[in-house]
């Protein structure tokens, strides 16, 4: 039986198409894996099915009925429920109160005993234990997720969508979750698991759809017809890899060194990056890149091990010392870590490096002019708020500041993300130029093609561990397989 069918779904944000004519068919009684890299469009597609977003074009049918109105409520009434990657429970309420909030039993807030009983009944019926008498903030992540699922089932979901459900779980919990999904499917429901982990596709799914850059490259084929290598190739594509073609300086000194550095999800890591070298770091989100980025930029201290640049430890929580020490930081999220949106462009150039006594505003702005011209930052000059710049110009502003003064280490996290090709090209060139001037560069990338083009060596982070470095010419299939190996058990 067809639980839901999506036809010709198109959706774009700004000028970038996120979904480019996607077809998908989901059957009751099946666990369906939706596989793809970051940004392939998996979540966008499922948000549309759950009524959290609407398609620009295309039709959605649930249980044979076309959907006219895209709203969470409308789709919930048709039995579609989605457990999002970031939970949507109220942390100060108990499990029962959260359930009551989603589906109020009446006008009054239910009594504690009543709320608790409701949780207990559901938990027993579906075999998903959740403590009912403590606030949600005190539950473990696994419990929170089970509660999210219970809340969906409480509304009698016939089609349950789980977005990266195992990303936050330990292995044993992940296995239990897959068993739960199987049981729900056996019960006649349709289950969709959004994932980029091959291991769980083979462990718990019947059919698999692979998205690549907003298009279907494998449409609901039985998992049994595939192996890990074939799915990895589908995820990352087979285009020939362009090599960087850059000459590494032989015998250059080691600038950046990690000795068993570990923090959070990131397992102890040994790395050495030489002057003039670009080290690419690939991997899907949540596998330790954010932690590594924070270690290198001195946002956080390593829990174990050491991070040194030219033998000196990276200063932690002392950004002006970081700047003085020649560490340039281009964060993945520029409006969270690099730019103060309400402040002017000139003020943003001054972050981390201005003098103790500031010259008058007019002179500060006059000094910013040549920098903006050199970096081709367009959008209104030094006196406009940084928030008014377009993405490309904002990123050029960050680079103009961070690369000033010849850095020794450049930490660039997805520096070209979301930029137009012209700006992306310029930013790549300038970072490579910094490397040519003797900086060690660590480049975190989301797109393999870009990493292949810029990196002298490439490591893949999966499950918090780094692979042995890949070297050019890069084997796309091997890199893709390494990326999908997170949580491999």
């Amino acid at each position: 039986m067809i639980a839901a069918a999506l036809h010709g779904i198109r959706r774009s944000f700004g000028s970038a198409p996120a979904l480019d004519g996607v077809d998908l068919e989901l059957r009751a009684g099946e666990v369906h894996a939706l596989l793809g890299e970051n940004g392939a469009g998996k979540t966008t597609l499922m948000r549309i099915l759950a009524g959290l977003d609407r398609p620009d074009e295309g039709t959605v049918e649930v249980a044979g009925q076309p959907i006219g109105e895209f709203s969470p409520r409308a789709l919930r009434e048709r039995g579609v429920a989605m457990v999002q990657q970031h939970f949507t429970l109220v942390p100060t309420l108990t499990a029962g109160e959260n359930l009551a909030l989603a589906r109020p039993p009446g006008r009054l807030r239910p009594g504690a005993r009543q709320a608790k009983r409701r949780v207990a009944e559901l938990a027993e019926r579906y075999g998903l234990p959740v403590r009912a008498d403590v606030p949600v903030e005190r539950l473990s992540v696994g419990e929170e997720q089970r509660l999210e699922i219970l809340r969906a089932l409480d509304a009698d979901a016939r089609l349950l969508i789980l977005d990266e459900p195992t990303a936050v779980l330990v292995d044993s919990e992940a296995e239990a979750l897959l068993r739960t999904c199987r049981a729900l499917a056996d019960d006649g429901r349709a289950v969709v698991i959004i994932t980029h982990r091959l291991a769980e596709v083979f462990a718990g799914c019947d059919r698999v759809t692979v998205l690549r850059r907003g298009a279907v490259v494998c449409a609901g084929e039985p998992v049994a017809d595939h192996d890990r290598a074939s799915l990895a190739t589908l995820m990352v594509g087979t285009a020939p890899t362009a090599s960087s073609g850059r000459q590494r300086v032989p015998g250059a000194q080691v600038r950046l060194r990690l000795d068993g550095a570990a923090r959070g999800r990131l397992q102890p890591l040994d790395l050495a990056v030489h002057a003039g070298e670009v080290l690419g770091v690939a991997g899907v989100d949540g596998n330790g890149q954010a932690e590594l980025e924070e270690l290198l930029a001195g946002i956080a201290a390593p829990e174990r091990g050491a991070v040194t640049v030219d033998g000196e430890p990276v200063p932690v929580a002392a950004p002006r010392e970081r700047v003085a020490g020649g560490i340039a930081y281009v964060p993945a999220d520029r409006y969270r870590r690099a730019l103060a949106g309400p402040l002017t462009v000139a003020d943003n150039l001054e972050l981390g490096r201005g003098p103790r006594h500031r010259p008058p505003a007019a002179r500060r702005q006059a000094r910013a002019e040549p920098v903006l011209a050199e970096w081709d930052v367009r959008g209104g000059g030094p006196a406009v708020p940084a928030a008014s710049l377009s993405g490309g110009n904002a990123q050029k502003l960050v680079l103009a500041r961070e690369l000033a003064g010849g850095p020794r280490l450049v930490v660039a996290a997805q520096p070209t993300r979301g930029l137009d090709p012209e700006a992306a090209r310029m930013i790549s060139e300038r970072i490579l130029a910094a490397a040519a001037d003797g900086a060690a560069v660590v480049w975190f990338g989301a797109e393999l093609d870009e990493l292949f083009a810029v990196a002298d060596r490439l490591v893949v982070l999966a499950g918090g561990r780094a692979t042995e470095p890949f070297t050019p010419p890069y084997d796309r299939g091997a890199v893709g397989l390494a990326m999908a190996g997170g949580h491999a058990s």
Partner: protein
Amino acid sequence: MTMTRDPATVPAPDGVLGRVLRGPDSRAASVAVPVGAVLAALVVGGVLMAVEGVAPLSAYGEVVLGVFGRTRGLIDTAVMATPLILLGLGVAVAYRARVFTIGAEGQYIAGALAGTAWATVGPPLPGLLLLVSGLAVAVLTGAAWSGVAAWMLARFGASVVITSLLLNYVAAAALAWAVRVGIRDPGSFTPQSRPLGAAALPDIPGTGVHLGFLVALLAVPALAAVLRRTRFGFRVEVLGAHPEVLAATEARPARTRLAVLALAGAFAGLAGFVEVAGVTERMTPAFATGYGFTAIIVALLGRLRPVGVLVAALLLAGLTVGFDEAERVFIIPSTTVGVIQALIVVFFVAGDALSRRPGRRRR
């Protein structure tokens, strides 16, 4: 997926208060809204007086005369504006950094109390030295009182709004104890401290206004210069814009927050001692008059700018002084001026919200 979303469109973490504080987009609205709010509040206040059977225009005429029609009116206005300016400057700095302290009242009391204790039961010092050291004690005490809230935030994550508010009650209790027991004037029948005597502030020559007013006036350009021309001022702005950006590029937000709160407390402590040394000359149980809360209105009306604070403080002081005078002529309930002040705040906040309707929203 998330990566297709431009982070610029994601609003900074911001409460309702934060949105009001950010002010409207255009410069015109940033002045028009407070001016309009004051006018609207006066109109509604006039309607209320008319309902009470008082001719509003005559009453307002008397208010204006009460301030400008007699020498005493301007003097009283300047004297009353003095603590409001100093307190308002401190609050404005904190709010620019999005550190929402409402503890100015407590810091004001604590500063006044400590300064008075120093000057009345401390070491016997000659006049000027006593005054200056008393001021220093008051400033440090105010800063420390405010710093407690910063410390509790850094150590326990306790909200500054809550802790700074509660510290006001601690200060009020300390005042009640001190004037009855701690620094009580043994020769006095009623609970009060000894008079400051030599530590009292002299008048500005040729006027009836104590020197504290001059101090407050000088503090306005001084603070403006600090905000515009120093690294600390820059960090205040960055902290107000985005603490994480500050942490990643400039300084630890906790340290900047501590500095901001200490500065706000220093201004409040200064205001407190200036009020004792210039006006009351001793501490009494009635010393706490709520200036620390009025200062929040002053800072908001003044758009968190030093000059704006000066204007707003003079305006609110003038209104109060003028109404005091008008009450002698007309039968106006003494709460009228309080109602008008409250209406100013309501119209001000509403006006800001209206000037930022969807369509003109800042990115």
